[in-house]
C-alpha cells in the first residue's frame, strides 16, 4: 500500500509518499503511526504527538482505530488549515 504525507508531517519524514508493506501486527491507523515512528528520527518526530495527527484512508477521513487492512492509500497530516 501507499503512504502519503502532507505539510510538516511530510517535511519531518522527508518524503511526500512511499510504498509500504505493513507487518501483520499493524491493524489500525494508530498501530501504523506507532510502527512508522520506530523507523527513524524523522518519523519519530512526525508522530511524536500522535493525537494531533489526522489520517485518511483512500481519500476519506479515518479515525485512529480504523482498520488499515483493506487500504490502498493511507495519508497522514496535521490538522487542516484551509478555507
Amino acid at each position, binding site marked *: 500500500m501507499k503512504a502519503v504525507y502532507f*505539510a510538516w508531517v511530510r517535511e519531518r519524514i522527508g518524503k511526500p509518499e512511499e510504498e509500504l508493506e505493513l507487518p501483520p501486527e499493524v491493524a489500525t491507523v494508530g498501530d501504523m503511526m506507532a510502527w512508522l515512528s520506530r523507523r527513524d528520527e524523522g518519523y519519530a518526530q512526525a508522530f511524536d504527538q500522535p493525537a494531533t495527527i489526522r489520517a*485518511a484512508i483512500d481519500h*476519506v477521513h479515518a479515525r485512529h482505530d480504523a482498520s488499515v487492512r483493506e487500504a490502498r492509500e493511507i495519508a497522514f497530516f*496535521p490538522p*487542516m*488549515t484551509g*478555507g
Partner: protein
Amino acid sequence: MSVASVSVQAQDFDPAAETERLTAGRADVGAVVTFAGLCRDEAGALEVLEIEYYPGMAEAEIGRVAAEAESRWPLLGLRVIHRHGLIRPGERIVLVAAASAHRSAAFEAAAFLMDYLKTRAPFWKRERRVDGGAGGWVQAKDTDEAAAGRW
C-alpha cells in the same frame, strides 16, 4: 440530482461570474449568498501564502461536504472553489456561493460549507514573511473546530 459544483485550482476565479452562473436564465432563485475568503497581509508582515493540498481527496471531501449541505437545505445552486499554490495578500483563496428560494437556506448552507472546509478539507497554509522569517505552518484554530461543531 446534485446542484453542486466543486473546483480545486491554482488559478484565480471571478466571483461575479460564478454567482451569475447560479441564477442565469432562471427566476426561482430568491437568495444568493456568496462568501469570498481573502489572503490578509497580517499588518504588512506576510509576503505570500503557500497552500498545500491533497489532490484527489480535496475535491472528494469538498464534494462530500457539499452533498451534506444539499441534503440539509433546499439549495438551487452551490459553487465551491478552493485555490492552492502561492497566494499573495489581497488575493482570493476560497469561494462559496449558495442559491435558494429563501434567504435562510443560502445563508446557513454557505456558513456550514465554510466551517466544514476549514476543518475537513485537506489544505494546509504556510506563511512566507516579508522579513524572511520562517513564518511556518499556520496552526489550526480551536475556534474553527467549535464553529464546525455547531452544525
